[in-house]
């Protein structure tokens, strides 16, 4: 069961990003942001990164970017150079980011407290449609909202068609076998070539969903060499083991 304790839920097991980690190190060392020399905590930051402890892997590149900046700052600090007050040094920039990020954390904490209080109050789960027919003042509707409404309609329509299609001749299981056979023969599938050979829009859709599902289940890997380039499908050797 999820805890309902008021207050900032600190994730002790990982950091949201490099700024989060830096602030943690600064506080841990009882340093003050305004007075800090970032070179003081560079080693510790790198050690964290190396241990991968508390690092959110999907954010890894962002952590690495900041590591590069820290190393650069450190290298600069080793070289005596005249201080140019007009110059925005990378250190000043990073410290500025940290100060700003600290504010964000404070606001987040406040919003979290407000969220907690509000969640104690229950609204009606669903209200009968008899009277409630919402109206929108035109001023409140932006072009994007209009686009979103159209998008929802198209989505709904697509879903209907998909249900209709799936009751037709093409089955996902058959398609899966066909794709695996093809991969066994050729080693890979060029997506656009493959689609071009299919007979109907129904077959294309079923094949496409089959491919998506197989990719999701790690049976296949889709590789796109460049933006808007062709997509190649390969069997996922690693994925076969857990199936």
């Amino acid at each position, binding site marked *: 069961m999820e805890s309902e304790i008021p207050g900032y839920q600190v994730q002790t097991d990982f950091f949201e990003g490099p700024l989060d980690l830096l602030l943690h190190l600064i506080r841990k060392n009882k340093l003050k942001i305004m007075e800090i020399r970032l070179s003081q905590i560079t080693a510790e930051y790198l050690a964290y990164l190396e241990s991968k402890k508390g690092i959110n892997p999907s954010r890894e590149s962002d952590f690495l970017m900041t590591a590069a900046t820290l190393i650069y700052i450190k290298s600069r600090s080793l070289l005596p150079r005249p201080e140019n007050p007009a110059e925005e040094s990378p250190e000043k920039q990073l410290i500025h980011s940290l100060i700003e990020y600290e504010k964000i954390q404070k606001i987040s904490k406040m919003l979290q407290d407000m969220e907690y209080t509000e969640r104690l109050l229950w609204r009606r789960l*669903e209200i009968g449609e008899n*009277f409630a027919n919402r109206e*929108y003042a*035109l001023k409140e509707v932006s*072009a994007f909202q209009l*686009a979103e409404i159209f998008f929802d309609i198209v989505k*709904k329509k697509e879903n209907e068609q998909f249900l209709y299609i799936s009751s037709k001749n093409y089955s996902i299981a058959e398609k899966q076998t066909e794709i695996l056979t093809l991969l066994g023969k050729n080693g890979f599938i060029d997506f656009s070539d493959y689609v071009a050979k299919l007979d109907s829009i129904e077959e294309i859709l079923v094949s496409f*969903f089959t491919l998506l599902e197989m990719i999701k*289940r790690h049976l296949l890997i889709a590789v796109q060499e460049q933006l808007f380039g062709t997509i190649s499908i390969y069997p996922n050797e690693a994925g076969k083991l857990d199936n």
Partner: protein
Amino acid sequence: MNPEQISQRIALIEAILFVSKEPVEPGRIMEFLDIKDIEEFEKLLAIMEKEHLQDRPERGLLLKRSGGGLQLATKSDLHDDLKAFFTIKQSTKLTLASLETLSIVAYRQPATLAEISDMRGVNSTGPVKNLLQKKLIKITGRKKVPGLPALYATTQEFLIYFGLNDMTELPSLEELTELFEEKEQPSLFK
């Protein structure tokens, strides 16, 4: 039950019935309140129903027993007022039905009523009329198919309302797909 307990329990019943979207089985509430005796429970309901709802002119709700369940509903003498309150039309307001229709005309123009109704899955005569009256859409011609249905397109007023210079400034569907599409496809294999 002492008076304090009675109050507490009635407050909880009110909250439960307020939140619930369907009638709630009395048995579930009895069990939850740990009341074993049906008579005792009925007494509680009677107090709530009569003393706290029916007899109080400042209350707009009543306790209803329907479909084997308990439910709060508005008092019947308020129905005319409620109907009047919720149907006040303000000239600048659009219903969701009108907005849906407008979005279809904007993206599929020129479009016929049949095409609009087909996309929305419901007859859209009402919203089309409404939008014509508000001058957000206009008839631009007739489709060359049997019956020669009217073709609708958006107007200059439409552009002004949405702060657009021309139709190319409407967000594209690709942009939206990117923004709103869930990454996770529901699994087809289970």
